[in-house]
């Protein structure tokens, strides 16, 4: 008769062995003795007490982390709520910039240059682009830094990505229309990643998350979004 291995005895101890092992242990005196020996050892290891943490340390714990907790909770709350509020305003600004560029540029600029000058239009466009890339960067960074676990809930990032897709499309078309090839290429790359995020399952596996992270990191997208976004905003504010 083949006796149970130590690993099988360990599973029996934890109540995770199959019926075959349990039946064998019940019928086999040497295996029962070995199981009893293992159980005595394991029970003794479990009975080793752990002292409570020092009272002084417990009193210091919350004051030590409270500022960072408040900052983390506050930043996330204000950041997201501000972004949701900004969404419709940005879309409206984009629409103004886009349609003014598409249909009114020649006529309005020639007849009423002071009403919507190229400079003011460029200013709105740059600030809008900066804000858009800033918000996109938050989505990308959240996913790029998400820890791998069995399943990750990306529903909040998806909601924002879905809202950003329309704005991104308008900005990309504007950039193409105005001949800004580098911005158009960046927005094109960003749009494809935003679409991937928006169309992913709400709960992604570690493999799916890794794929998304690879897309975000590919061709330095996150870095470019961060740099171009900051530069556009600065440039727009200076105009």
């Amino acid at each position, binding site marked *: 008769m083949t006796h149970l291995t*130590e*690993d099988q005895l*360990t599973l029996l101890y*934890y109540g*995770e062995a199959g019926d075959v092992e349990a039946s064998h242990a019940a019928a086999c005196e040497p295996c029962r*003795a*070995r199981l*009893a*020996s*293992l159980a*005595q*050892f*394991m029970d*003794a*290891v*479990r*009975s*080793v*007490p*752990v002292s*409570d*943490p*020092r009272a002084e*340390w*417990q009193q210091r*714990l*919350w004051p*030590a*982390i*409270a500022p*960072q*907790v*408040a900052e*983390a*909770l*506050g930043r*996330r*709350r*204000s950041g997201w709520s501000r972004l949701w509020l900004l969404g419709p305003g940005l879309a409206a600004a984009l629409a103004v910039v886009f349609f003014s560029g598409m249909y009114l540029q020649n006529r309005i600029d020639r007849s009423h240059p002071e009403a919507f000058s190229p400079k003011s239009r460029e200013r709105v466009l740059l600030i809008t682009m900066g804000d858009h890339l800033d918000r996109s960067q938050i989505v990308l960074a959240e996913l790029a830094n*998400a*820890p*791998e*676990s*069995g*399943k*990750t*809930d990306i529903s*909040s990032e998806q909601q924002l990505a879905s809202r950003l897709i329309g704005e991104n499309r308008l900005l990309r078309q504007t950039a193409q229309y105005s001949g800004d090839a580098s911005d158009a290429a960046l927005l094109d790359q960003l749009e494809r990643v935003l679409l991937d995020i928006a169309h992913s399952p709400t*709960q992604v596996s*570690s493999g799916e998350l890794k794929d998304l992270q690879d897309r975000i990191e590919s061709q330095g997208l996150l870095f470019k979004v961060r740099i171009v976004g900051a530069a556009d905003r600065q440039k727009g504010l200076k105009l």
Partner: protein
Amino acid sequence: MEATHGWATTDEGAVAEARTGNPEAFRVLVERHSRSVYRLVYRMTQNEHDAEDLVQETFLKACRQLHRFDGRASFGTWLYRIAANCATDLLRARQSRAQKQVAFHAETEENPMEQMPSHAPSPERLSLSSEIGRLLGPAMSQLSAQERAAFVLRHYEGCSIEEIGQALKVRPNAAKHSIFRAVQKLRRALEPKLGVTAGSSL
């Protein structure tokens, strides 16, 4: 605190309130879970100061990742996963440094277990539990970070193999074999010191 706010009566309520940006709600969670998290990481590190630092790190990580808590597991279980990962990272970093030192000082390094007195106390003189308590720290230090985490989560916290796999981001089979190796190593290290042979009766 807990008597005055409805949200403070359950972890779910406190988590929901903390997500609105209320630090006091997170404070409730810290006060409720800090001791159990401390016990978990102390068992893994066998060091009081490491455990204290790891509890802080665990709660700060939990706070920053609170939006990712989906409520499928209890908040305590979710917190344990973070704590186990923090402790595993610390142990891995430390073991990596130790291995480099061992490689450098290969001739002079000795097994810490061999430096311990090898007397086998009689049951009359010392209780088994207290003797194991004295020997357990050095024995645990012989386990890899993953073996320690898997063993502590299974043996002391009663986590299932599946939960341990999720916590340590490994397949269930890998988690199971980590536990097997941990048990084998602990028995080989401790039972001779206790005057018995691994696999025989205590």
